[in-house]
């Protein structure tokens, strides 16, 4: 009497590579797309950038240490691809003096009329994304990695290849700038009264 069950063929190296890639890399597709969209500023380029990133990542998959931070690794590849191949033809390098941007909170303007910031609730997603897209590139990428993707300062520093202190200062200025843009928009739309100068 035989109780042997049919043997399942052992997965080959290609199947194994594909399986780990799907499990550890492709699951981050949404994140890569959101970041790509904010970097390139349009859906067609974001599609191409993500596809390019996944191809590069698959080719380099043997160099990725499995089980470590795949999302950070992929975002680093994406950012390099963007800088080398897309920025040149999509957006021109900016010449903004980031240090000249004075980061002051809009809280001072709204603390009497709307200290809870309820005017923010009336601002729709597209308007917020548009305001992010108008930030200088270094601010935009920092805010996207932090507030859109929820990465830690350390992870952001590694991806952007800057010190953690730089991440902190960019994030501080970026958020304040964004807050100011959204406040100005809300004033323009009549969601909140402008504070007397």
């Amino acid at each position, binding site marked *: 009497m035989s109780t042997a069950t049919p043997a399942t063929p052992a997965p080959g190296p290609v199947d194994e590579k594909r399986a780990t*890639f799907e499990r550890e890399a492709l699951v981050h597709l949404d994140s890569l797309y959101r970041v790509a969209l904010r970097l390139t500023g349009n859906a067609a380029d974001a599609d191409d950038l993500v*596809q390019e990133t996944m191809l590069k990542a698959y080719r380099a998959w043997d160099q990725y240490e499995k089980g470590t931070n795949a999302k950070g690794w992929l975002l680093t590849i994406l950012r390099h691809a963007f800088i080398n191949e897309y920025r040149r033809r999509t957006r021109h390098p900016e010449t903004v003096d980031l240090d000249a941007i004075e980061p002051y909170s809009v809280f001072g303007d709204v603390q009497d009329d709307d200290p809870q910031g309820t005017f923010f609730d009336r601002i729709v997603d597209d308007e917020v994304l548009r305001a992010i897209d108008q930030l200088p590139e270094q601010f935009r990428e920092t805010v996207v990695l932090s507030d859109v993707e929820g990465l*830690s300062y350390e992870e952001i520093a590694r991806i952007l290849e800057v010190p953690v202190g730089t991440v902190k200062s960019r994030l501080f200025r970026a958020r304040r700038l964004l807050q100011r843009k959204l406040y100005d928009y809300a004033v323009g739309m009549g969601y909140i009264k402008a504070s007397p100068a």
Partner: protein
Amino acid sequence: MNCRECTEHLYEFLDKELTPEVEREIRTHLEDCPPCGEHFDFERLFLDFLQARCRARGAPPDLKRRILRELFDE
């Protein structure tokens, strides 16, 4: 810790990036200083708002199909 020092650490506090000691100092200051407390609450609401507005969207379904086809020739 005074108001200025406290505000300098505002986002690090909200992002939970501070050491436990500094975080404790800030909490103590916020309990004793209602204006800073209100300001921090406002900034927290702003970050919650920002994150809620930006995290909803993902990649278009067709993109994953394109990538799978490109990678695995499906």
